[in-house]
């Protein structure tokens, strides 16, 4: 990230991180026929007591990044620094010690808890891996405190996961992650499997825990509205790359990347009037395969801005090219890979688009000031019925 904070402020940093998986074919003799670049050169910084939101569609590499950060996967390239120390160069013992400080909360509270283990055993399981993390009062005491902390009844320690609702199971998952007193929680879509009214409870719990324990969160979600509520900074990923990052206000209200703008416009607004006003910048189809990413800007095959520019009257239109099967886009979009460039307002706000200026202008024009949103009663019915 462009911004240079005081070094001791940063708890987790990744530099130019990449993770690729081989694509094999053949029945008996497996040959490697290609590489899927799940994460391709990502740099992020997470500060103490802060929340970094990571958003993107399925296949953008956000879950792979999470798995690398907690040590489930080894990176192909790049470094992960915890408290400024490179995880890959330290001794096994030191690494294990450090791994304690980065724990994970999983997406699906139904499959991430072993149905044959009691809640007490589930929450105490991290102590088996990190025996030195057991507090002085002993495991039983620690488990009771953890359950209390996440708002569950400590008397339910002998119950099994199926006796709990989805929201309660996610609380169990959070208690388990907190058992070894981590400093960083990597939360991979922690609320997307929950009912709306329960989502809020879990998000509020995470916010309370952050205040109480000074935790830092990497909060992964495809729901930008949820991320806005909890994140201080946001990074938007597309096909393994970060395409935009910055403090939440910059990213949400002055998006510099057309992909961010499109993601935002896809969020359902619980207000029929607002939905009629806000034209949806629909993204066509699915993201391309990370095994064969598009040339130039990876987003150009689905980019509404590139299409707009190519069909406009500016110099970009004259120079537009036809991509195979795709839409006409400005030549640069199809040939040059854009890098993250800082966008004036705050140092930390950066976007990887050749036409950042045009994208930001559209964002500014589109985002209505909440104060000037017209009264629903005076707006004609958008459905015309």
């Amino acid at each position, binding site marked *: 990230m462009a911004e240079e904070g005081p070094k001791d402020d940063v708890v987790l940093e990744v530099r130019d991180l990449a993770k690729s998986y081989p694509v094999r074919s053949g029945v008996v003799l497996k040959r490697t026929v290609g590489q899927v670049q799940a994460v391709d050169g990502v740099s992020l910084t997470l500060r103490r*007591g802060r929340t970094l939101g990571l958003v993107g*569609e*399925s296949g953008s590499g956000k879950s792979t990044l999470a798995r690398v950060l907690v040590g489930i996967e080894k990176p192909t390239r790049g470094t992960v620094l915890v408290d400024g120390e490179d995880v890959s160069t330290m001794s096994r013992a030191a690494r294990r010690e450090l791994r304690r400080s980065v724990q994970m909360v999983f997406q699906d509270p139904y499959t991430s808890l072993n149905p044959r283990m009691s809640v007490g055993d589930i929450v105490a399981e991290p102590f088996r891996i990190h025996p030195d993390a057991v507090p002085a009062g002993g495991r039983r005491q620690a488990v009771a405190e953890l359950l209390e902390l996440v708002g569950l009844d400590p008397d339910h320690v002998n119950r099994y996961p199926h006796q709990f*609702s*989805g929201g*309660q199971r996610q609380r169990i998952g959070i208690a388990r992650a907190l058992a070894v007193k981590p400093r960083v929680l990597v939360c991979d879509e922690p609320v997307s499997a929950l*009912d*709306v*009214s*329960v*989502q*809020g*409870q879990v*998000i*509020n719990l995470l*916010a309370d825990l*952050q*205040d109480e324990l000074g935790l830092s969160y990497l909060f992964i979600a*495809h*729901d*930008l*509205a*949820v991320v*806005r*509520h*909890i994140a*201080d*900074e946001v990074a938007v990923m597309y096909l393994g790359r970060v395409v935009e990052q910055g*403090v939440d*206000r910059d990213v*949400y209200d002055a998006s510099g990347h057309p992909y961010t703008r*499109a*993601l*935002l416009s*896809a*969020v*359902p*607004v*619980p*207000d*029929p*009037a*607002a*939905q*009629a006003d806000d034209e*949806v910048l*629909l*993204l*066509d*189809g*699915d993201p391309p395969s990370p095994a064969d990413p598009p040339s130039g800007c990876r987003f150009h095959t689905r980019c509404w801005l590139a299409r707009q520019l190519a069909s406009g009257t500016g110099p970009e239109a004259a120079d537009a090219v036809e991509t195979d099967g795709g839409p006409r886009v400005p030549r640069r979009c199809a040939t040059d890979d854009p890098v993250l460039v800082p966008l004036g307002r705050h140092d930390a706000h950066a976007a990887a688009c050749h036409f950042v200026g045009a994208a930001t202008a559209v964002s500014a024009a589109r*985002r*209505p000031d*909440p104060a000037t949103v017209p009264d*629903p009663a005076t707006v004609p*019915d*958008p*459905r*015309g*019925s």
Partner: protein
Amino acid sequence: MEIEIQAGTEAGVPAPETAQERTVGTTLLEVSDLAVEFRTDDGTVRAVDGLSYRVEAGRTLALVGESGCGKSVSSLAVMGLLPATAHVVAGQVRYRGDDLLAMPRTRHRAHCGRHVAMVFQDALAALNPVHTVGYQLTESLRARAGMSRRESRRRAVELLDLVKVPNAAQRIDEYPHQFSGGMRQRVMIASALAMDPDVLIADEPTTALDVTVQAQVMRLLAEIQAERQMGLVLITHDLGVVAGVADDVTVMYAGRAVERSAVRDLYAAPAHPYTRSLLRSVPRLGTRDDGHDDAHDGARRGRLPVVPGRPPSPGHVPSGCPFHPRCDMARDVCATDRPPLAEVAAGRSSACHFADELLGGDRG
């Protein structure tokens, strides 16, 4: 039978000629006082308790509620697809006047396959992994419409085109695992549309999908609904999703309808405290009512407004108004008397003792 898209989304424009004409406003499906019980180890449990709704041609009804509120069970009852442990204990389901529940089960199912179709939440589970997408689409066309192999294949490609699966003629020979989540859901919609149904019931069609794909699928459903003047029932827990597509909303809680309103009225001023809580707990993009103006000041953001507790499971429904333990307006009467679903304003019903207060308070 035809599959061509016909224009005419405005009221008054004749609907495309199909098996029976669909004129906007015609009641296609009417559910009245439906009650469904499950047999469990702890005795019988009522999952749906006196639910009524009406689906009209050219209109979209959203059935909104959280896990266990009975919204999915009620649709399974409509379709005649209840599991063996469940049965309808009361009520009627009328399709164009005929009570489906009074028919023999086989006729009920046949009626539903043809005129009332359903799209399920989990498209991967609903598709058979060992058969191609084309086989699964043509199977029903051959069985139900008696089409030949070639004819059914041509029709299946048309259906995939209709739901905007790119390269439909090639992709028809692929297997479900070769499709993305959004594309699978499109295949399910195509399959449901195969017999050109009058009513389409979509049970959480976008819950497992990314926001971008969700927007695509919702738009597709709305387009198809408008083009064919179908009646569409959208079952969801997310009030955000239905704001742009539904005409009417029925909010369910603990097996009962607690509010019934036109979409605009509901969002402008909910007539039931549960609806209000649901609306408040949808995280919103534009508003940050937490005074979190400067991201660098280290100030903590405010908390999301939440409904305390969780929805009751069937069999453990509280006395009186089932929502009273979670309601911030609850008074003594709420714990003892069950409020009926009653009209509280023109075209609006609410099952709350204090609906007038709620509507008055929100307006003032």
